[in-house]
């Protein structure tokens, strides 16, 4: 087991050169040239879950690839009890602007877990703490020469005031912060870098699959590979509005022969998933052609096959950090109908690379439009794929992380000659 990864996580140690066919040799050379300026530096990432969820997925790739580039990167996971994860789940929802009762015991649980994990911090040149869960560890920073960055993966623009004040006191002690999108920034008194996340085009979830494998995987879940498929992939979470998707499908299904697949799982830090799944099962009772798949966290190839088999991909979130699942769908050349929120608004150029919708009715209208016009769907999917190739693939993400490290070293100088 690699000692630079959390226990049980296998590094996806793919050489950067493997990406040449996807992004081209010049872009690879750019990353290698840039990496020379941070070669040999130590860089620790800390988050709160080793498996499940977008953060864990990206760290499993980012860390080994940074090492491949000569950066001594490592990843640690903070430990917490049920009380801590219950509190941070409530924090997650409250940061997204949901009305969630927060009480002192939750803040106490957070501080106790932070204190218990203080030994996790290593003396590194750079430390990245991901999301609110480990942010409190900044209080235990030992070496003032280390540069600390807070990486925010969620939309905190409408965060609950008391909670944000609690976090802000901690976050403004970092050297820099990173947000997915400009609208998520919070007027902090530290640099606010904009860094959208990325997908790995060579991972099991995104690599090319032969048609026969796609069909066989789809059929093995009782889905008809020949019937038009509307797909939403996401963990069972109220913020992803799975009930709204079932409602939209009901409208489409009245006049179009098609099937709905809701495929999801739940991350280890999300105790709410089972409750949402039960509600979706109840809502879908009696609606024909609805397939609800509760998949394990490592069902990447299955998700890949479902996305490739889909006719239209839906992501009808009511709140969204960035929505990497939208990026995945776009990368597969599919038209995506997405809720007009968060990172989905940023990724989908309405009527060019996808459709933005505001309601189950709007979702139904656009899905029906795409099912009825396959040529339009094809062109939209093609543009979506090119958009992802330019901006949201792992090699660009790694390059941008190197720039973050350089920017923390150099301060706010607009033009830097290395």
């Amino acid at each position, binding site marked *: 087991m690699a000692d630079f990864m959390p226990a049980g996580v296998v590094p996806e140690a793919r050489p950067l050169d493997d990406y040449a066919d996807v992004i081209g040799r010049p872009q690879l050379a750019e990353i290698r040239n840039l990496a020379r300026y941070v070669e040999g530096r130590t860089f620790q990432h800390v988050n709160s879950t080793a498996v499940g969820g977008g953060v864990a997925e990206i760290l499993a790739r980012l860390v080994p690839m940074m090492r491949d580039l000569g950066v001594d990167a490592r990843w640690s996971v903070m430990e917490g009890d049920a009380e801590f994860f219950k509190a941070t789940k409530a924090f997650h929802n409250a940061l997204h602007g949901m009305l969630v009762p927060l009480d002192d015991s939750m803040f106490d649980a957070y501080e106790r877990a932070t204190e218990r994990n203080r030994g996790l911090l290593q003396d590194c040149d750079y430390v990245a703490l991901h999301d609110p869960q480990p942010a409190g560890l900044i209080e235990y920073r030992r070496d003032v020469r280390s540069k600390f960055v807070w990486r925010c993966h969620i939309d905190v*623009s409408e965060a609950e005031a008391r909670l944000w004040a609690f976090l802000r006191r901690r976050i403004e002690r970092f050297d820099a912060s990173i947000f997915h999108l400009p609208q998520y920034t919070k007027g902090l008194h530290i640099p606010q*870098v904009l860094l959208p996340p990325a997908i790995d085009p060579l991972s099991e979830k995104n690599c090319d699959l032969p048609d026969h494998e796609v069909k066989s995987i789809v059929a093995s879940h009782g889905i008809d590979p020949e019937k038009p498929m509307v797909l939403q992939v996401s963990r069972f979470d109220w913020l992803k509005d799975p009930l709204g998707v079932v409602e939209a499908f009901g409208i489409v299904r009245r006049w179009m022969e098609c099937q709905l697949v809701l495929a999801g799982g739940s991350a280890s830090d999300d105790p709410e998933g089972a409750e949402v799944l039960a509600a979706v099962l109840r809502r879908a009772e009696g609606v024909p052609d609805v397939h609800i798949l509760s998949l394990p966290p490592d069902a990447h190839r299955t998700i890949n096959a479902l996305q490739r088999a889909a006719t239209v991909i839906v992501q009808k979130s009511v709140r969204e950090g960035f929505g990497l699942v939208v990026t995945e769908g776009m990368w597969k050349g599919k038209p995506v109908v997405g809720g007009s929120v968060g990172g989905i608004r940023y990724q989908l150029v309405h009527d060019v690379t996808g459709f933005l919708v505001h309601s189950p009715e709007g979702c139904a209208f656009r899905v029906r439009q795409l099912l009825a016009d396959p040529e339009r769907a094809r062109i939209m999917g093609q*543009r979506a794929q090119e958009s992802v190739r330019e901006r949201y693939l792992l090699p660009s993400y790694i390059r941008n992380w190197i720039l973050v490290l350089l920017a923390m070293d150099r301060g706010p*100088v*607009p033009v830097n000659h290395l």
Partner: protein
Amino acid sequence: MTGPFRFNDEVALIKAASLAADDLSSLLAGLRRASDSSIFYHVHHALFRRHFAASEMSNDFARWAWITLREEPLAERLAAVDPLQFRSIPEARDHLIGIVESYAGRVRFLARVPREHEFHFCEAQTFVFPTGHVAEDLEGFLRGIRGAGSGTIFHHFIAARHRVGLPDNDFSAWIEALGERDLADRIRKLSPFRYTLWELRDRVAAMIEEHLSHG
């Protein structure tokens, strides 16, 4: 005697400028207050950010005016702004301010957009570094340009205009110093509104190749 051509790469880290606009009046205020690197990001960088969609507006201000503010006449005028016509960023800023000011003075009602649809000013922190390719002559230059990435083309062909002075770019300036004025001129005329950075690279390489073959 002309020195060697050293190929550089240019990449940018994007940061929030903590400045937002929710109507034409706050857009104007933002245009006045934003840093030069912010104007550079929203106008120059934007030109090459959305080549996958030809129907897209060429700069961020035009796109926001079109899609969010729904001020189509303003969007059309902003979309026609050519970032390469200006000698400096302040000149580009003044031009944008002039367009928005004159339009805002003529409209009867200034629409405001909700918070989630605001225009957020960003800025680019730029990093320039050598690619390692050095050309002593046209043959070497051709090898360098063939292996160049989009950041190299952006640096020498687009951003260079602010360094070298209009209407030049680093490629043409160096090639002209070699005594190849016609070739330099033909490269100067390549339109960034017609080609992506990758296509610009391929066009420059093809022109040099053709020139060398007629040697």
